[in-house]
């Protein structure tokens, strides 16, 4: 089985992000970048499938600036077999990213694409779905459990949906996007880092994919969320109920 795992380079969710004064983006100086946590979960799942099934190949792919090599190296150190970077200095919108990925899927013909459900930078939650629809492949998003049939030709996915869990099954090839509770990603081990040195990390210019000017979404301005204003203390329950009725208009 061949599993393709697209990953994205994003700011470390544990760091504080500041918006540039002109609103053109975020301040990236001294910001640590990591593999998007949902992508990391997808990679972990792919590695577990590889370990359980034996003989599976895990291929990493990313679209991003040249420094995205760092995240791909980390992924290789975690255990992926090879990696490919589409070098794009500009940020791509979800539809364009999906178009590039579609071409990569067509060239690689994996049995499964395991992706994060969304990246924690713009939280679009679209690439997996657009990719599935443009390939006309079955998809299961928000996966919290992924199981394969004995002949490895079908996958059953437990999805986290509003109000409960849903199970869907489809024949491969297909696309699964991962939710937070699917697994806990491993650390890249020291021997893994050493082995990663010898693994292939191919770079391809974005121009090879002919998507120039295809962007449908443009970011005009970024702004930090408004500061939460201080709360108010009231003396009695009656007063609270009254305010919820007259001011907040909640009851």
């Amino acid at each position, binding site marked *: 089985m061949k599993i393709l795992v697209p990953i994205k380079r994003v700011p470390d969710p544990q760091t504080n992000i500041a918006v540039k004064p002109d609103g053109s983006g975020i301040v990236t100086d001294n910001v640590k970048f990591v593999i998007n946590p949902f992508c990391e979960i997808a990679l972990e799942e792919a590695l577990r499938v590889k370990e359980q099934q034996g003989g599976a190949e895990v291929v990493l792919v990313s679209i991003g600036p040249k420094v995205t090599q*760092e995240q791909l190296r980390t992924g290789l150190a975690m255990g992926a077999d090879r990696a490919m970077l589409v070098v794009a200095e500009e940020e791509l919108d979800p539809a364009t990213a999906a178009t590039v990925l579609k071409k990569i899927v067509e060239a690689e013909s994996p049995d499964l694409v395991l992706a994060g459900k969304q990246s924690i930078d713009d939280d679009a939650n679209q690439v997996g779905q657009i990719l599935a629809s443009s390939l006309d492949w079955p998809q299961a998003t928000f996966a919290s459990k992924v199981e394969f049939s004995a002949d490895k030709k079908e996958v059953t996915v437990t999805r986290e949906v509003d109000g409960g869990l849903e199970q869907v099954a489809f024949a491969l090839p297909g696309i699964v996007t991962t939710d937070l509770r699917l697994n806990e990603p491993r650390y890249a081990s020291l021997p893994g880092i050493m082995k990663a040195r010898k693994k292939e990390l191919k770079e391809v210019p974005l121009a090879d994919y002919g998507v120039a000017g295809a962007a449908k979404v443009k970011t005009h301005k970024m702004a930090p969320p408004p500061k939460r204003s201080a709360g108010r203390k009231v003396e009695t329950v009656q007063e609270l109920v009254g305010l919820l009725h007259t001011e907040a208009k909640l009851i």
Partner: protein
Amino acid sequence: MFDLEMTEDQKLVRETVASFARDEVRPISRDCDESGHVPPALAEKGFELGLIHSALPEDVGGFGEQRSAVTGAIVAEELGWGDLSIALHLLAPRLVAYPLLDAGTPEQKKRWLPAFTKRFQPAGAAIVEPRYDFDTLTLATRAKRSGSNWVLDGSKCFVPLAGDADVLLVFAQTDAGPQAFLVERGTPGLTISEREKNMGLKALATHEVELKGVTVPADARLGGEDGADVARMVNLSRIAVAGLATGVARGAYEYARDYAKDRQAFGVAIAQKQAIAFMLAEMVIEIDSARLLTWEAAWKLDKGDDATRECVLAKRYASNAALKVTDNAVQVLGGHGYVRDHPVELWLRNARGFTNFDGLAIV
């Protein structure tokens, strides 16, 4: 001529060890301090990270990674940042495995190293002696020839994980200077006492070890007839301790800095007050100085030079820096620093040991 840029591999190593320290070590460090134990599951996770066996040769089950004192210092700093007791526990097997790797005969490597590549294998080195004039290179513990055997006599203390170790590396004075001996658990004359009750490092089990007429065969001497370069081992140990001390200091500084930026007094964050701001600046200077001295010493060792001078300076400076910075961190937090709700009192207790012990880790 001058370049302090980490290699790509070193960056990845630092990142993965830092994540491990942040997500696995820090969250349990208070519990470990209170309970006096490091959970075996964590030791196993540390092992899986490759802290011990990545540098051991492939023919004994390791991965044959080229070892580097600089990378060792980087790893030590990140683990020290997480928690010193836990770091020393996780790294303790190196105290036997690395000297074996550097100086062991082919037979010694084949016999002892495979165990270190399978799972977390408790082991420790017996170096420090309970006497006021202790000196690493002039030991009171004696090793005397008796026919083809060696007979060891003396007292040791601060021996990590001695209670659980299958083998200890005991340093003893021979006519040709200090040498190291592999002493198996249960060897007649070897007594491992109850755990020591220390001021800090409470999660790390350390023991006094008594050797009375402990007789070991000739091939128990590390390096066989050639012996081992104990001075270099001591230098590698100084780098490990200096790296750990830098990490402890950095952890305490970062905590104090964040606290000072958040804590309001007289209408401003206390970090705005010069008395605090100057203290924080001094702390950073100490940490960066300690790190640079450590890296320089490690770099010289990696080149194969005799770096005794640099190693001594680095260890001494970083030990003092850790004590000063953790003490200042307690001060920045004021009354809050003295209570156990915050970790700085724990870090101060741990850092106090750096100037009292030796040889508790190796790179």
